[in-house]
């Protein structure tokens, strides 16, 4: 049976949920704002769902929208606090917590990495995320709208910065 548009959309979001989750966590240091941002990203994705250009990978399209929304959200002085209007109180994503030692160590390192990412400006933050996601230079260039050479230069700078920042860990 053919899926309705909304069901198709939910299926796609489910398949790519990690993209949204990671972007939200990188752009929103404040936990309370995260629900707003993830829902804003979902709304933009839904509004652009019909306009998806199949010449690009679905993840490229999704990264562009999610990062553009996240940057707008981050740059807004007054956050979109319209909870009573159309936002839910509940988060769209659930993550099971685990108190094992291994998990605690991973969380510690992730926290350090996120602190490093938070200190970058909006565009470098996007570049950093894509680099750590091991996207190809070509895909990063497509998402950001800069040349491949420029991506390579910036990534080598980021590598140096990362090395410097994490040398004592």
């Amino acid at each position, binding site marked *: 049976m053919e899926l309705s548009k909304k069901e198709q959309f*939910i299926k796609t979001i489910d398949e790519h949920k990690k993209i949204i989750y990671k972007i939200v966590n990188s752009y929103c240091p404040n936990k309370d704002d995260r629900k707003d941002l993830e829902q804003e990203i979902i709304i933009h994705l839904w509004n652009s769902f019909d306009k998806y250009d199949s010449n690009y990978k679905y993840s490229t399209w999704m990264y562009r929208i999610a990062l553009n929304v996240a940057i707008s959200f981050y740059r807004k002085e007054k956050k979109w606090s319209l909870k009573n209007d159309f936002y*839910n109180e*509940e988060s769209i994503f659930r993550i099971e917590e*685990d108190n094992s030692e291994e*998990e605690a160590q991973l969380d510690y390192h992730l926290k350090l990495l996120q602190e490093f990412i938070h200190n970058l400006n*909006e*565009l*470098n933050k996007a570049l950093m995320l894509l680099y750590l996601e091991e996207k190809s230079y070509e895909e990063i260039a497509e998402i950001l709208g800069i040349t491949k050479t420029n991506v390579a230069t910036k990534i080598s700078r980021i590598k140096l910065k990362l090395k410097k920042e*994490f040398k004592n860990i």
Partner: protein
Amino acid sequence: METEELKNILAAYDTKLDKKLSLNVASLKNINLNKSEKNTQAILKYRIVEIVVFSLLALFIGNYIANNWSHTHLVVSGVIVGFFTLIALSGSIGQVALLNQIDFSKPIVDIRKKIEFVNTHGLLFVKLMFLSTPIWWSYVVVGSDYLFNIDLYSNMNADFVLKYLVINSLLIIPLIWFLCKLNYKNLHIKWVRKTIGFFTGLKTMKALEFLNDIEDFKN
């Protein structure tokens, strides 16, 4: 820690998310997905109002010039006021065009630049205000003639008119230099920052700073 180790941490994080991250479908279904982004719509409405106002003003000025065709000084004043109205009108039309090009599925740098140009719209009016300084009498001449039916020019002393023309002509070149400086590329100059900040406010200033960041990022 090497970057490779960081990537290993992220790979472990990925594995964790694969296992433990789930979509709250009920919550997703509860979102009103058809709600559009209010902020862009609100800016678009303001710009459309500006277009209507400036178009009406341009029509009025056109009509004023036609009705006073035999009075050269009123025609010249009307043309000057009309010229500034048309600049403001084209600025607002440009903004609507930019707003219509904002599509979040397009490359980030292009979209951010368009958004920030929309956010710096206030600077156009500041520049127009400064640019009007040497010809401010045109507004007074047109206004007093239209509103109070008083032809100020015919009551002016010829000596005053001559001095006004000379002094204000001398102002044009420094003023153009000054306006060219009021640009996001010159934010490193203290007086440029202060002037823009004072006349446009924090929002425009932040947008201009971000335009600078975008340029740096692109190069």
